[in-house]
């Protein structure tokens, strides 16, 4: 056991290319595994229990293999291109949407050294690539040459224009408090700072940035086009909007990207507001190890997974509870409520930072 605490890990001595391949494999695991887990846990099971039904029960114990069955089903579906569609753009759209998901995952730290990359402008990079998915959605909506898809794509663009700003401005409060754009340093700041001289749990920014956290969650919900902000995919009127014409594995790519992006945003939220991969300092003091000891490279991913499941639970809880906003209501909500609130949040946080 002591050896595990003391040694450098085996990959420390690897050449760069081997190290990178290891990271890429971990990236696939970090994107796809939580996506499968949350789809089963929340989309299949939690929603069923909330609606007083059991959900999938046949495939495997408690329907746990249902996801594999779904993949198998989509594997055999014909890949239909609508005759009028713009074939190239139609085929490219799922690539762009999943590209956004993977680029977003790049900057998330999972441990003191367990990072894909340690960008100094991590927060900024994450916010920038998160909006790449809009291009994919617009491509899908336009190229389908279907009226439903076009409306869905345009609605998605309008919505993401409105909610990109609250998302960006809500994060500024965290950046002010941490004094850095580097996600790893933001985790450090949350673990090492104190709340009015009391440092037992560090300073997870959810406590001091409650308003920013709430705005962040609302904006993420809108970015993901989830209920109550699901006008772009509104099943009951637009028949899934920009995804209407997609079938088989191309549709599955949109599906995976949707849920994987929800998880990556939850990872991002956990890093920014819940202390990231670190555990409260009093726990590490109790164990007698440093807060960033190498063992956290192994514990960190599980800590992140726990916090991610907590945040995605909130996403899906809201998703399965509320009715949907009308298009004008959601624009009004963003511009007249969220943006003034987040500007106020920035001003107050800045005053507190400078004065105290």
């Amino acid at each position, binding site marked *: 056991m002591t050896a595990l605490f003391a040694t450098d890990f085996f990959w420390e001595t690897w050449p760069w290319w081997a190290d990178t391949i290891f990271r890429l494999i971990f990236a696939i695991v970090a994107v796809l595994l939580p996506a499968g887990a949350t789809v089963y846990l929340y989309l299949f099971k939690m929603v069923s229990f909330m609606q007083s039904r059991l959900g999938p029960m046949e495939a495997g114990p408690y329907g746990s293999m249902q996801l594999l069955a779904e993949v198998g089903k989509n594997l055999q579906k*014909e890949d239909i291109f609508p005759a009028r569609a713009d074939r190239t753009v139609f085929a490219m759209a799922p690539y762009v949407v*999943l590209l956004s998901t*993977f680029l977003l995952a790049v900057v998330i730290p999972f441990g003191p050294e367990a990072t894909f990359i340690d960008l100094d402008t991590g927060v900024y990079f994450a916010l920038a690539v998160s909006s790449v998915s809009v291009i994919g959605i617009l491509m899908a909506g336009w190229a389908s040459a*279907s009226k439903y898809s076009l409306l869905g794509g345009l609605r998605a663009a309008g919505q993401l224009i409105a909610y990109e700003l609250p998302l960006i401005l809500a994060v500024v409060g965290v950046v002010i408090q941490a004094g850095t754009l580097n996600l790893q340093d933001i985790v450090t700041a949350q673990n090492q700072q104190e709340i009015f001289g009391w440092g037992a749990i560090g300073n997870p920014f959810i406590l001091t940035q409650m308003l920013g956290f709430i705005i962040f969650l609302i904006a993420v919900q809108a970015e993901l086009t989830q209920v109550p902000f699901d006008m772009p995919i509104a099943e009951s009127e637009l028949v899934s909007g920009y995804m209407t014409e997609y079938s088989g594995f191309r549709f599955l790519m949109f599906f995976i990207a949707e849920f994987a992006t929800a998880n990556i945003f939850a990872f991002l939220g956990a890093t920014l507001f819940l202390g990231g991969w670190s555990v409260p300092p009093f726990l590490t003091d109790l164990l007698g190890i440093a807060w960033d000891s190498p063992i956290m490279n192994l514990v960190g991913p599980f800590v992140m997974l726990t916090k991610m499941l907590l945040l995605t639970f909130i996403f899906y809880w809201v998703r399965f509870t509320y009715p949907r906003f009308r298009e*004008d209501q959601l624009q009004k909500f963003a511009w007249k409520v969220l943006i003034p609130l987040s500007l106020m949040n920035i001003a107050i946080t*800045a005053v507190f930072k400078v004065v105290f």
Partner: protein
Amino acid sequence: MGVQQNVAQIPVDLGSAQPRAVAFAPVSDFLREYIVVGLFGALAFGLVAAFIGLASIFRPDRPTADKVENYESGVDPVGSGWSQSQIRYYIFALLFVMFDVEAVFIFPWAARLEDLGVFGLVEMVIFIFILALGLAYAWRKGVLRWV
């Protein structure tokens, strides 16, 4: 045996994590990080291509005229799919560009606020105040109304 020796050689250090030493000199760390970003992009593309390629082995391919017709609630589609739509939020889009540029200015300031101190605070409060004034003006002019 070999593992045992390694453990013995490395001093027990429960303290801070060592910085990673990667033996690859010719490329700077900064550039290498963006190579990884590029590789992640390639990974996403490769993954989608692999999945769709895998499906092409199993899936049937028998398009018929009805099958490749656009969906329009079961009836034959009327007119072109690229119908003219009124983009009702173009004013919002213009506002968005302005506020997005503002965000670009705010981030470096936010990261360096501790060093800038009261001077930086006053400057940025003036900046945010002017922007809020602009938003209030747009609001008053009825731009934020759904047209």
